[in-house]
Every structure is written in structure tokens, then in C-alpha cells.
């Protein structure tokens, strides 16, 4: 009989603090190889197409930036939530509502095409995302309702709202009955960074700025300190005069605003119109990104790029090897599992003991 025993470290381990995401990624690679074997594919070519091939061409690096942008933006906001113990898992819904709010300008006011169009769209999207995230925050702060469940339920509601809009009132009359809004005019389109090389738009830059700004906020400001205090010890925070319910609103609305910004960047920069599906699960993948980045906004940049790579790798492996793109989700799920498991190493030593040995010791 073998048993796992945890021994608390006197001090958390800086080594594992740094290394645990890498160990987790390594374990994911090993188990990924096993999945490829089980599917009857050569594990090395499988992993090659997943993690190296997308990095070998300039255009696919651009695709990487397109996918990493929303992930980083959302995850940076989620860092604030999770650090303060507010479990916003409805970023996918805030992403959608942000996109809807931002799209109001090109859809409802097609004539309004100035230099102000795009900035206004971005602001509207942030407002929309923040309001939508404000709902679970209000329900938690005022009515004590579990924010995990309410924020998640609102994802389904947002998806249905988007579906209704693009099939109904906002459908492009010239769209041959396909669900989808009018295509956005150039003034409402987030421009490409280096058009001669690839499609990556300025959303990626926005994401980097957002991540650095959130990092600065968390690491260098008093309010950022408040986030950590209330997360680690609500009681201590109370004695310091910090308001837990204000923090609920603050963290939710900040992350909602960033998710909304990600939504409009995706719609305006990458898709070019509002459609019935605008996200391949960015809001959920960003949860993985936040944890893989150790809830540090700078860490989410690296983690977001890695998760974006799995999306691209999934496409590459599907085209070249005929491996289902569903494997991507499995990779992402495994990655989060291993990240969480490895995080234990930061605070505990893990000892594997056998029953008999323990018996002789006591």
C-alpha cells in the first residue's frame, strides 16, 4: 500500500515557484505523446506539429499573436480576481458582451466613420464587459450569491443573446440569410501591425500593454496591495480598513472590462463582423493561462503564447496528420491539471510512503 504524504515547507520554495509551470508543461508533453500513441500516430511528429511547426513561419507567428492577444488580455484581468479570491469564471460571457457593446457603433451608426470610431468602440466594449461582470459582483456583494455559478450561467445567456442579435435584429440584410452582422468599415477595424507580413492586428499590442499595466498595478500600487491582502486574509484586510465588497466589484469589473476589450479586438481585428460564434473558448482557456502564469500578469504573457500555440498546433496537426482538433482541449485541460498539481510543490514536500514502512516507524 503506497500513500502520498505532504510535509509543509517552513518557507515556500522559490525554485518550484519558478519551475512548476515548466514541470507541468513537461508532464503535458509526456502525456500528450501517450495520447498520440493511443491515436496510432507517431508521438514525435505529433508534438512537432503541435509545438514547433507553427513557430517556423512568419505568417503563423502572426496567427499566434492573434490567438495569444485575447488570452493574455483576459487572463491579466483574471489574475486580479483570483488573487483577491473572487472566482470570475464567466470571462467568456464578458468577452461576448464586450464585443456586442463595441459593435453597436459600426452596426447601429454605420455613417459614423472618423478617427474616434475605433477608440469609442474599445471604450464601449470595456464598459459592456464591466457591466456584465458587475452582475455577478452585485449578486455576490449584496445578496451573497455564489459568483462561480452566477458568472458561469451568464456565459450561456450571453451566447444566446449574441445568437439572437446576429440572426435577428442585427443580421446583415445583404447577408443571404447567413447569421452575421454587416462587415465593419475600415474606420471600425483594428489595423494590422505589419500588413506586408501577416494578419496580426494591434490587439496583441493592447494585450501586452494591459498585462504590463495590471502587473504594475498589482506590484506597485496600494490598491494592488489591497488585492493581495484581501485574497490572502480577508480578516487582516478588514482590520486594515479595506472593503471586501468593494473589492468584489473592483476585481470583477476590471476583469470584465479587459475581457470585453478582448472581445471587441477579436471581432474588429480578426473577424471583421459580429457572428454567432466569436470565440473558440478564449474565456475558459484564459483561466488556464492565468494559473499557468502563476497569477502574475507578466507570467500570463508567456502562458498566453503557449496556449495560443496549442490552438495553432491543433489546426496544424489536423491538416497534416488528421488528428482531431478536439485534442487541443484535452491538452489544455491536462495542462491546468498538472499546473495545479505542481503548485503543491511550492508549499509542500511530497513524500511517497509505503504503509509498512510507516508502521515500523511509529
Amino acid at each position, binding site marked *: 500500500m503506497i500513500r*502520498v*504524504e*505532504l510535509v*509543509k515547507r517552513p518557507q515556500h520554495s522559490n525554485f518550484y515557484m519558478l519551475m512548476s509551470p515548466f514541470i507541468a508543461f513537461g508532464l503535458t508533453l509526456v502525456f500528450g505523446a501517450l495520447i498520440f500513441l493511443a491515436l496510432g500516430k507517431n508521438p514525435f511528429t505529433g508534438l512537432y506539429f503541435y509545438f514547433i511547426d507553427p513557430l517556423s513561419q512568419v505568417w503563423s507567428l502572426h496567427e499566434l499573436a492573434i490567438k495569444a492577444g485575447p488570452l493574455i488580455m483576459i487572463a491579466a484581468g483574471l489574475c486580479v480576481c483570483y488573487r483577491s479570491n473572487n*472566482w470570475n*469564471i464567466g470571462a467568456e460571457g464578458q468577452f461576448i458582451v464586450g464585443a456586442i457593446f463595441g459593435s453597436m457603433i459600426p452596426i447601429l451608426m454605420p455613417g459614423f466613420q472618423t478617427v474616434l470610431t475605433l477608440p469609442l468602440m474599445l471604450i464601449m466594449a470595456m464598459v459592456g464587459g464591466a457591466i456584465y461582470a458587475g452582475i455577478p459582483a452585485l*449578486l455576490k456583494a449584496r*445578496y*451573497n*450569491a*455564489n459568483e*462561480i*455559478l*452566477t458568472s*458561469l*450561467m*451568464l456565459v*450561456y*445567456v450571453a451566447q*444566446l*443573446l449574441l*445568437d*439572437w442579435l446576429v440572426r*435577428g435584429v442585427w443580421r446583415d440584410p445583404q447577408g443571404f440569410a447567413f447569421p452575421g452582422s454587416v462587415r465593419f468599415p475600415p474606420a471600425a477595424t483594428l489595423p494590422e501591425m505589419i500588413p506586408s507580413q501577416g494578419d496580426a492586428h494591434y490587439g496583441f499590442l493592447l494585450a501586452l500593454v494591459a498585462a504590463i499595466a495590471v502587473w504594475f498595478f498589482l506590484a506597485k500600487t496600494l490598491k494592488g496591495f489591497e488585492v493581495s491582502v484581501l485574497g490572502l486574509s480577508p480578516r487582516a484586510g478588514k482590520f486594515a480598513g479595506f472593503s471586501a465588497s468593494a473589492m468584489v466589484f473592483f476585481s470583477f469589473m476590471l476583469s470584465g472590462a479587459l475581457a470585453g476589450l478582448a472581445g471587441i479586438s477579436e471581432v474588429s481585428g480578426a473577424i471583421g463582423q459580429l457572428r454567432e460564434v466569436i470565440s473558440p473558448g478564449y474565456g*475558459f482557456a484564459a*483561466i*488556464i493561462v492565468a*494559473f499557468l502564469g502563476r497569477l502574475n500578469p507578466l507570467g500570463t504573457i508567456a502562458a498566453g503564447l503557449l496556449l495560443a500555440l496549442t490552438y495553432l498546433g491543433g489546426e496544424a496537426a489536423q491538416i497534416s496528420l488528421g488528428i*482531431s482538433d*478536439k*485534442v*487541443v*482541449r*484535452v*491538452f*489544455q*485541460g*491536462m495542462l*491546468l*491539471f498538472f499546473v*495545479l*498539481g505542481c*503548485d*503543491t510543490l511550492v508549499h*509542500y514536500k*511530497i513524500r511517497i510512503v509505503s504503509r509498512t514502512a510507516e508502521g515500523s516507524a511509529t
Partner: protein
Amino acid sequence: MMDMWQNIILTIATAATPLLIAALGELVVERSGVLNLGVEGMMIMGAVTGFAVALATGNPWLGMIGAIIIGSLFSLLFGFLVLSIATNQVATGLSLTLLGIGLSGMIGEEFVGEPGVKLSNIEIPGLVDIPLVGRLLFGQDPIFYISIALVFGVMWFLFKTRTGLTLRSVGDNHDSAHALGIPVLRYRYFAVMFGGACAGLAGAHLTLVYTPQWIENMTSGRGWIALALVVFASWRPLRLLAGAYLFGAVSIGQLHAQALGLGIPSQFLSSLPYLATIVVLVIISTNRRLTLMNTPACLGKPFVPAR
């Protein structure tokens, strides 16, 4: 007229059964002090397993058993992480859901569009023809009967047996339970596995009874609604029964409203079960005293025995 009402109640029962079973499992898990947010993931794994095994063997009963086994094995992944190596329960549960949705999508890809095998109803000759309640009580699918038996089984176990009392004590104060020599983690492992088995069975109900086919992501939030139901029921099995049927009624009601074509957009009606979940959560949670009194005190807290 009478038959119409019976049919409506029957469809409500069919919609309520998976919610009820998954929520009952989670109720026991939470009573032991563990919060498993992976219900959705375990449920969808049960759904795909039930479908696949029934299709391969032609026997839906084997599909059901397979779903129960896979559900509990899958929950062990979560159990190992949160119990043996004390990871964050919220995040680990979420990752179980993400992994389950991914894995089931991968496994189920070849089954899309295939007709499934239906678990046939158990009909007691004669009694089934009693007007109004005959079919409801004596002519339903086997999983329905299991769900009702489970309600009373769980009630009896939690409140009438010594093991149930111990399980609740583990959930309310793991340190005291540990000091009394109760193997806290072992109790929680069994509770988590029971929750997984129930979620697996609830998933099997979807693919073997509700809609005998495989659609990716077909649980569509039912696992999450089950989680909300546990809060709604303030961790009591009988209230869970009422809650699950209330939700079954909401989701069937909106389907009927869609069929009638009342001019209300179908998307709005489809969102009603989710909105109802939120409303119900708010109403229950507003009463802080009620929630505080009933919530297992150690819910979601990791336990690392000091040696």
C-alpha cells in the same frame, strides 16, 4: 386531457432526473467538505461512455454501468489532486470540467450522427394503465427509479446511519474528526467517487434515455445547474428532489413555449433555465442565516493532516 397532463409531467421527470442524480452525488461530496466543480465534466464523460458502450455492445445496461465506472474513475483525478496533494478545489474542479469536455469531444467525434441505443422503460403490466399516474409511477425508464431510490437512500445514509453522521462531521470540522481518529481523507475519497458515479449515471441518462445520440457538449450546463441545486436545497436531499423537478418544469415549459411560437425569441426562452438558476441562487443566498447554518463548515477547505 388527463393524458396530456401525465405526458407533461413525464417529460418534466425526464428533464429533472439527470439534474437530480448529479446533484445528489454532489450533495454527498459537499457534505464531506469537498467542493467539486467538475460535475459538468464527469457528467459529459458519463454521457459519452454510456453512448459508446451501449453502441459497442448493443446493451444499454452495460452502457449505464460503464458510465458509472468511468464517472467515478474520472472523479479520482480530482480526488487525488485536492485530497492527496491539497490543491485549490475551485481551480481543480474547473480543470476537471475542461478536461472532461475536451476528452468527451475527442472520444465522441466518431459517434456524431450515429443513432444510439435507448434504455427501454420498465412497465408493470396492468398498473401502467392506471389513469393519470400509471405511467408516471409504473412505466418509466430504470434511471428514473434509481434517482428516486437514491434520494431516500442518501437521506437514510446521511441522517440515519453512523457512517453518514461521521461523513457529515468530516465536512463540518475536519480537524476534530481527525483528532477523533476518523480517517478524514478516506471518507472524502469515497464521497468524491460517489459523486463521480452519480454524475456519470446522470450523463448516461442523457445519452441512453433523454436523447439517445451523441452531441458534443450535450450536457450544456446541466452539471453547473446541479451544483446550484445543491445550494438551493441547502444540502438536504428532499429539497433537492423538489428543486430538480422545479428546474425540469422550467426547461420543459420553455420548450413548450418555443413549440407554441408565442412570438418570444427562442433564444430568450432557452436562456430561462440559466436565468432561473441565478434568481434561485440569489433568493436562497439572501437568507444568510439559513445558508450559514446549513453549509458544511469545511466546504472547500483543504485538509492536510499534521503529523
